[in-house]
């Protein structure tokens, strides 16, 4: 209920008025879970932009996977992140915590959730895809039948770059790619995902720069 209201009153209006998202490949967007969305991470707006792509009736099923150390740091942010944004918190340091850190994410998938994952692990350079962490590979290996949908955002780093607090409105481009399947091997899967993301990125750059310069 709170999450639907948040989507209706904050996420959708911000995305519509302050941003304006031009989506390409919308037919690839999953409308039921379980599914995993993988996106580049340049700004806190990424989550808002991704949530805004979904219709209100399934917004309760969409959960961003987020760093526990960052979002559970104080009581207010923790409440907001868990109850309003609906994050699935995980530990960032896999070596210390072991593989069971994915348990909450796997449970969410088993409940039919659509998870949003930023495999760079943190907000990177604007309009770039940094090196992806292996966590996504571990997660998909646990549930190999679940489709993984790559999404590339172009322009959000311009609206609200890391380290800025002022949102400056611009139109944003989103490129959604075809769903990927587990390849039976983590390295193969990670390579395929990296390739899909870089294809979307070069598509974004050619489309946008063709139109702009």
């Amino acid at each position, binding site marked *: 209920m709170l999450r639907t209201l948040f989507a209706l009153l904050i996420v959708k209006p911000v995305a519509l*008025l302050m941003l*304006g998202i*031009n989506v390409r490949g919308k037919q690839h967007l999953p409308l039921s879970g379980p599914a995993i969305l993988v996106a580049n991470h340049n700004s806190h707006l990424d989550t808002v932009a991704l949530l805004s792509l979904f219709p209100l009736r399934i917004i309760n099923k969409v959960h961003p996977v987020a760093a526990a150390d960052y979002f559970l740091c104080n009581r207010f942010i923790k409440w907001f992140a868990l109850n309003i944004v609906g994050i699935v918190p995980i530990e960032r340091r896999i070596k210390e915590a072991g593989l069971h850190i994915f348990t909450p994410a796997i449970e969410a998938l088993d409940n039919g959730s659509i998870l949003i994952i930023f495999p760079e692990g943190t907000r990177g350079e*604007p309009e770039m895809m940094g090196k992806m962490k292996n966590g996504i590979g571990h997660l998909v290996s646990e549930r190999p039948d679940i489709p993984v949908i790559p999404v590339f955002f172009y*322009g959000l780093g*311009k609206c609200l*770059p890391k380290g*800025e607090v*002022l*949102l*400056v*409105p*611009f*139109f944003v481009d989103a490129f959604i790619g075809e769903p990927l399947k587990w390849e039976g091997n983590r390295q193969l899967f990670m390579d395929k995902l990296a390739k899909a993301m870089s294809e979307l990125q070069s598509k974004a750059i050619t489309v946008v720069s*063709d*139109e*702009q*310069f």
Partner: protein
Amino acid sequence: MNTAYIPFNVQIAFMVIGGLLTVASLVSMYLVRAKPERDYSELRLRIKTWWIIVAVFATAVLFNRTVSVIVLGLVSFLAFKEYLSIVPTRRADHRVLFWAYLAIPIQFYWVWIAWYGLFIIFIPVFVFLFLPMRMILIGENQGFLRAIGTLQWGLMITVFGLSHAAFMLVLPAEANPAGGAMGLVIYLVFLTEINDVAQYIWGKSFGKRKIVPKVSPNKTVAGFVGGVLTTTALAVTLAPFLTPLTHYESLGAGILCGLAGFVGDVTISALKRDIGVKDSGSLLPGHGGILDRLDSLTYTAPLFFHYVYFLHY
């Protein structure tokens, strides 16, 4: 909404606009059926967009001053956002752009309280002096002139120019007994849009010689002349119902809107050609094309405003 406050002529005007669009919708539906082999989706989409534009415009003028200012301010905001999204901006200017956006609500606030003095100097004096200073505080010299030039030009056409359309709604209604407070804006927007359509139709029918081949290869001398004549004829016909203009004054208003509409149109075309965008509508399907729709108005609104303001207010 209290219909008693809407002058009879304005009610008629909206009925006529609704009627014209209904005819256009019916004709397009007939065409789809009569000639299934041809693709009319573009035409259908255009007419549908026109319905939306008229609905937004009706909301903007028919309720009250607050609604008018908010709706026209939002239109201005969307146009400015579209402008900034297609022109190159420097990453260093993030906070400068924020201030530029902030000028929009302030400018429309002057409209809302009908403070003409500040409305007319706020952007060209205060904002235009403040933004370069804010840029200099950031200290990025590379591309300074280009950055400040593009930013100020954008504010000029999408905010300052368009806010004149809003200010017409707050001019004293007593000075315009025929059309009331909203008559002038309806007159201006109707003439500007008809001028676009007339130029297109005249150009398609009789156009040969190109008028500005480098900027806009589709524009012809015949289209331009036919457009100005059509607009002037309509301006003279409609003036007694919607404006305080006399016959001769409305002749001038018609020529002014015809000429200015053309210049506004090709100015936005030149801007898009410089950046390399053909159509800001195809760049931003579903959202964009606001600049494409407002291009002529960016010139006609301030020029027509000052023409009428000088003569009657």
